[in-house]
């Protein structure tokens, strides 16, 4: 079995590309915005920096980079996930100190609001998923050569698995009415570590030939969920984005108000 990965991303309408505050990473990496899965497994990590925190983009990038290089077993237990998050949080102050020093050296010391923002921390949602492909091409028999996936989620970045033209899994499963501006977030400060376990969701499932996985940040996840709730099959559109043209589709869907104006990130894993 083989698979392709397609990535799509865009900043909020009205913002410049350098104001995009989502982050994504695959391991092994893909070149440009599309590629074939090399090997029998892949890890996809997507984070959405909270717009109210000025260092959110840096934090989101650090989360996906560190999760991409974390050991294979990381996504198989909450304890392992929390250990990785703890290590990232421990390292973050050094990143900020280094940044502050570089600003001072360049004659642009931090402004008061940047100092306050650093003190309050940076925040992002996170979804990381390991997809392991079936060993025998074409095998769909239960318990035999079946591939599998493991994923962790904190917040409203979501993964949708499609099989046989049906939505098999939505993870996390969030009704459209519950998307909002207050998702659970991974904070860079250690002050909320005690609350992380309750917000760290784990899930797993099987992987089969023909499956599609769509991993996306909240604006697109909300659109996807609303489409499903109204009886539509949004995956038919997302599968064809290469042909439709992502920028054109995005602009049209935003213009009609069907898609909330926010940074958008979509990673599509197509197994064939």
């Amino acid at each position, binding site marked *: 079995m083989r698979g392709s990965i397609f990535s799509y991303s865009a900043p*909020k309408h009205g913002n410049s590309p350098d104001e995009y505050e989502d982050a994504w990473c695959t391991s092994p990496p893909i070149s440009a915005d599309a590629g074939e899965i090399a090997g029998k497994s892949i890890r996809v990590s997507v984070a959405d920096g909270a*717009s109210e925190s000025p260092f959110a983009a840096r934090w989101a990038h650090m989360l996906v980079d560190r999760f991409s290089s974390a050991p294979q077993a990381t996504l198989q237990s909450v304890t392992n996930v929390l250990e990785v998050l703890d290590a990232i949080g421990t390292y973050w102050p050094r990143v900020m100190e280094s940044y502050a020093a570089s600003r001072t050296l360049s004659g642009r010391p931090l402004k008061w*609001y940047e100092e306050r923002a650093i*003190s309050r921390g940076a925040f992002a*949602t996170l979804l990381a998923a390991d997809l392991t492909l079936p060993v025998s091409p074409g095998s769909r028999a239960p318990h035999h050569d079946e591939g599998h996936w493991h994923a962790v989620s904190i917040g409203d970045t979501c993964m949708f698995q499609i099989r046989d033209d049906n939505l098999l899994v939505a993870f996390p499963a969030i009704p459209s009415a519950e998307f909002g501006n207050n998702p659970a*977030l991974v904070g860079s400060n*250690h002050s909320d570590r005690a609350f992380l376990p309750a917000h760290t969701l784990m899930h797993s499932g099987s992987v089969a030939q023909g499956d599609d996985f769509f991993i996306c940040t909240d604006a697109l996840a909300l659109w996807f969920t609303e489409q499903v709730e109204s009886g539509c099959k949004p995956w038919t559109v997302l599968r064809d984005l290469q042909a439709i043209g992502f920028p054109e589709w995005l602009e049209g869907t935003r213009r009609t108000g069907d898609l909330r104006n926010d940074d958008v990130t979509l990673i599509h894993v197509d197994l064939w």
Partner: protein
Amino acid sequence: MTYTAEISRTNPSCFVFMIDQSASMIDPIGGRGLQHKHEVVADAVNRLLMELSIKCAKEEGVRDYFHVAVIGYGGSTAGPALGGDLHDQDLVSIGLLADKPLRVEHRTKKVPDGAGGLVDETVSFPVWLEPLGNGATPMCKALNRSKDILAAWISRYPRSFPPIVLNLTDGEANDGDPVQAATELRQLGTDDGAVLLFNLHVSGAGGASVAFPDSDAGLPDAYARTLFEMSSPLPPHMRDYAAQQGYSVSGGTRGFVYNSDIISLVNFLDIGTRAVALR
């Protein structure tokens, strides 16, 4: 649907602070020991401006999601109350405001240490407004000045999230009926809804503090009841945020606070995903 417009740099909103700087503001506030009303108001405005700035902060700059006017009223005048480089400005962008405080003080606060305890941390605290109290209370003049500023602003940004006016006062207007002037101000609006007028009442009358009530029953005096009457009802999404923060709300809840904290007002504004720690 009203009060749903996205707040962005191309579609900003507007905040007008009306600061009572009359002589009666020098008196002590009820139930708070030695604190004086003008000090409480200046502190509230400085903290609100700080929180608004941090909410819009990005690396090396503050995004101009809001335009801000700070109007002081006392004696016979109502006009710009910011000091320093901004002393003659009616309206400034939040980015410019954030870069131009009068001074930045350093204060010590307790923060969680991650192990269940607290540690001291020195934090920057910008100051834009000094406590001031002098002469009479021309609140109607200030409401009319706000109306003029906002009429011009709305003509430039007719589709924006409606402006919010926050009046911080002890309520003792002596240049006419502020209810009439407030009604005229609240008749202004953008395509997204009418101007919101909220009131923070600092009073020496004492009694229990009140935040976002839905009736004037229990308010301690006529000044409080007048300010409650002047205040806009909270739009539905603001009521939801108020409820999330533990306030008791109903369809009649108004943007009125009596001798209590109004800093939560900043949390009623949406500019994107909220940066809040888990709890």
